[in-house]
């Protein structure tokens, strides 16, 4: 396990450096000047030049790159050239908001999807299975922005049960915060549960075909005990990995949900950074997403090990 983690960490470092480098270069290759963005529409070319100098983005790229790598290695992601705020501070705030949505929606999806997926597998090729599989397929096919828009229309505009668009933090007003988080969580959970349900069903089916399950059944164990004792633990592995995958995708991929629900998450920070060419912010966010994605993958692998002793042995 130790060398396994060490190897994963090595890959992590290489991958993060690579991602950082690519983003750094890509940002500087694309047209559009942050200095122009900061100064507003009427800025003269002299002012733009002066601002570039102030920001230090007129220096040779290798110099800027060296500086950035050096400070990133000291875990200093710099300051936003647009807002003047510390990048790491901004990311910290946003990550908590993103994580809140992601964790809640995934917990909700697991609660819905794991039991339903199991049922679908047990009742494979019967009416219940067809119904559940069809539902899952629909959940998979309806885009999040359609679901979100419809939920918003019904609950915020038509019935006015759930207020929308104005973010209230948990510490300021827990009740309002809770009301606020319901719709985005539901929106995300719908797609996620569809994915998890399908994965649960198929991996359960896979396990059920195994010899030891046949043996357990042959021993005369009740179906419930067979499922709980023999198949669930084995079937859950691919599900854990898909959950990890979903979580890391959502981290930077909730742009639309964040926009519809005006949720101040990491994706919107990234997008606004890209649009204003806020180099330090984009570099910082991509770096953090890369790190987190890999951390999540490592966590998934470790969970495998905990759930399945055979993997631990290897």
């Amino acid at each position: 396990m130790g060398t396994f983690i060490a190897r994963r960490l090595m890959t992590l470092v290489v991958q993060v450096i690579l991602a950082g480098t690519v983003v750094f270069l890509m940002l500087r290759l694309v047209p559009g000047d942050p200095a122009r963005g900061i100064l507003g529409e009427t800025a003269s070319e002299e002012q733009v030049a002066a601002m570039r100098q102030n920001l230090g983005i007129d220096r040779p790229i290798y110099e800027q790159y060296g500086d950035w790598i050096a400070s990133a290695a000291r875990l200093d992601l710099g300051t936003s050239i647009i807002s003047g705020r510390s990048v790491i501070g901004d990311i910290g705030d946003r990550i908590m908001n993103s994580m809140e949505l992601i964790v809640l929606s995934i917990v909700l999806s697991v609660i819905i999807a794991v039991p339903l997926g199991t049922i679908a597998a047990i009742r494979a090729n019967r009416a219940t299975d067809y119904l559940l599989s069809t539902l899952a397929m629909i959940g998979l096919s309806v885009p999040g922005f359609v679901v979100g828009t419809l939920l918003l229309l019904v609950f915020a505009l038509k019935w006015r049960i759930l207020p929308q668009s104005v973010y209230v933090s948990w510490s300021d007003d827990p009740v309002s915060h809770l009301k606020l988080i319901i719709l985005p969580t539901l929106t995300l959970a719908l797609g996620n549960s569809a994915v998890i349900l399908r994965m649960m069903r198929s991996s359960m089916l896979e396990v059920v075909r195994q010899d030891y399950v046949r043996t357990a059944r042959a021993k005369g164990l009740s179906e419930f005990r067979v499922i709980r004792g023999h198949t669930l633990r084995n079937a859950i592995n691919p599900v854990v990995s898909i959950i990890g995958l979903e979580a890391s995708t959502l981290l930077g991929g909730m742009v639309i949900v964040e926009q519809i629900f005006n949720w101040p998450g990491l994706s919107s920070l990234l997008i606004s950074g890209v649009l204003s060419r806020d180099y330090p912010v984009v570099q910082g966010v991509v770096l953090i997403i890369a790190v987190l994605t890999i951390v999540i993958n490592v966590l998934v692998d470790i969970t495998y090990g905990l759930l399945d002793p055979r993997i631990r042995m290897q």
Partner: protein
Amino acid sequence: MDTATATTGANQTAAGSRDASSLARRETTRFRRLLTFAGRSPRIWIPVTFLILVGAVSIGAPWIVPYDPTQLLDAPLLPPSSTYWLGTDDFGRDMMSRLIYAGRVSLGVSFSAVTLAAIAGVLLGLSAGYFRGAVDFAIMRTTDLFLSFPTIVLAIAMVAFLGNSIRNLILVIAVVYIPRFVRVVYGSTLTIANAEFVEAARVVGARDFYIMRTAVLPNVAAPIFVQFSLSLGFAILVESGLSFLGLGAQPPTPSWGNMISAARPFVDQPQLLLAPSAMIAFTILALNTLGDGLRDALDPRLHGSR
């Protein structure tokens, strides 16, 4: 997906050493069997029928639509009527015409993009899996890098940089989906490239390109097929998502995504929102169902061809 791929590969390896042409013949019979199976499976023929219908309507849009989709008619926000089947939108344009034209845009963009992605992905994946070594390393590490960025963020960043013409939209979605095809093709190619019959072809001195075309490609065709169907669904999702965010097809050109976005304020005209939403949902549903159906059809374990 990977299970299906691996099984196909194993199947071929088990088939033993044969020359490439007899293998191609074998492929043809397999394809015929697939068609027969498809005809019997509602999970294939229902979505296929639906998609053909939507596709035909989209292609024939200019001759079918009752009105010019960008023309401003009598009045905005008219309810559905016999004149305007789905009413008019906030600019007073016929919704039905826009819906049909939007399909043309959404499907056209997604189809072109995924086709491009498939071609590029197949070339790259084949090369990486067949030649191995430095080529493999360069292609696969780049692929990994691309896969580590969230899809939608990658697409948004690229659209932001390139500008959002329809051409760029196709390009961006293609680039986003190339890595998926590379992965799929690479996996299958690895297995096939080491198979005895490929070795045999090399020994008799066949050129690499010839081997790749006649021996490797037909054997990785099945998973590409499945991936194509699934990617098309996702591509529509990305296209409509970008359009919804205002980064895709630009008004007045209708696309399902920007129609949904534009309809959001109009609570009292739900058909403005529901019609494009339903079109997106049903189209993706059809593609996903088809993808699933194909995968099962190609998975020998599920219909006892083993």
